[in-house]
């Protein structure tokens, strides 16, 4: 009867099991391209505190995140007021954050490991709010989501190609909301869009799912 092998010896044998793993395709040139874009997005977010040029259809109402970033626009305040009138605003401090602010927060959080998708977003007082209220009005534009996702993960998803919400004009809020609900989010359809409740630790994932659920133009 042979003696049991030590853990270290057994682990050495285990390495042989992992000797022939399949080749994983790597796109070095693509990484360079996306890295360049990510630098640009991050520079914009950190340099100006705003990505307002490329966004404007999503409004986040909730406690301020990673304090010190750019002020809220008047248009966002209007949207916040409409959100504050709704039933889905529990926990909101009344301050309004547009998606460009969220993208800037995510980009700022992405400046150092761990990845931003692991990093919760904090309120100014250091606490983590229970949830954010995210609201979208009008025709969807995936570019802000993609900019935020790219800033956080360095990888623009091919979500539009996989979208399950190829809705006709006028029907997209319902289709998008249903898609988001299917992904596990609390979403309510409004007259011209939807509202959603999002944990602050899931901002990146939510943006990715919004992108997935947004019909291609």
């Amino acid at each position, binding site marked *: 009867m042979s003696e049991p092998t030590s853990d270290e010896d057994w682990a050495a044998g*285990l390495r042989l099991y992992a000797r022939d793993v399949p080749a994983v395709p790597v*796109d070095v040139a693509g990484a360079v391209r996306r890295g360049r874009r990510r630098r640009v997005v991050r520079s914009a977010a950190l340099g100006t505190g705003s990505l307002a040029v490329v966004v404007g259809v999503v409004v986040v109402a909730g406690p301020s995140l990673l304090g010190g970033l750019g002020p809220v626009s008047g248009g966002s305040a209007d949207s916040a007021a409409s959100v504050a009138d709704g039933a889905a605003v529990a926990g909101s401090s009344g301050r309004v954050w547009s998606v460009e602010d969220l993208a800037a927060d995510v980009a700022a959080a992405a400046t150092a*490991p761990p*990845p931003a998708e*692991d990093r919760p977003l904090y309120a100014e007082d250091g606490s983590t709010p229970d949830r954010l209220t995210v609201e979208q009005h009008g025709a969807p534009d995936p570019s802000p989501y993609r900019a935020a996702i790219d800033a956080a*993960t360095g990888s623009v998803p091919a979500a539009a190609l996989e979208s399950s919400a190829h809705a006709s004009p006028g029907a997209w809020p319902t289709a998008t909301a249903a898609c988001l609900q299917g992904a596990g989010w609390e979403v309510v359809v409004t007259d011209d869009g939807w509202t959603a409740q999002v944990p602050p630790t899931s901002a990146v994932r939510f943006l990715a799912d919004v992108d997935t659920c947004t019909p291609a133009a």
Partner: protein
Amino acid sequence: MTVVMADVGEDSPPVVVPADASDDAGPATRPADARIAWTGDRDTDFTAFATRAQAELGRTAWLLTGDVHAAAELVQTALVRTYTAWPRARAGDPMAYARRVMANARIDTWRRRRREVLVAPDEVPHTAGADAGAAVEHRDELVRALAQLSPQQRRVVVLRYLVGLSERETADDLGVSAGTVKTQASRGLHRLRATLGELRGGGDV
């Protein structure tokens, strides 16, 4: 460790300098068996690094995820982040930086989002060759066993035992204490042993 700097122009390709034979800091699977003389140009230097590191990063990513597509995405994310932080990454160890990004990725959440099963047997690619059958069988057994570990135990086991990092290096990559690595590695390994038993074929020791 010997760092070799070559006096080359910005447009010149980086020079890969074989490491000194005595400069062996770890198992043979470790990536830094050659040093790259940086040119100072971000794209050139990063491309040289990534080209050299891609196989090892891909292997680590596959062991972490058990899926080629997921691993490719994980490596790509790590490389993009490493490019973005290149001055900082290059000042230290770019490979460690890239590996750190991969190790800290939310591989559990990420798998769920992709609606993939880590170890679905049909998704494990097969290779050809004389010993391919046994190798694939061993590989499948391993990845199934790894899937039974918690994400953190899997990270520790992969980095510590399959990539071959020291406890300290594993702790640094994961941002935890060496004691945590020791505990998680021990538990993870025992669980693997319970699952796999005595290793067969090339795994016998």
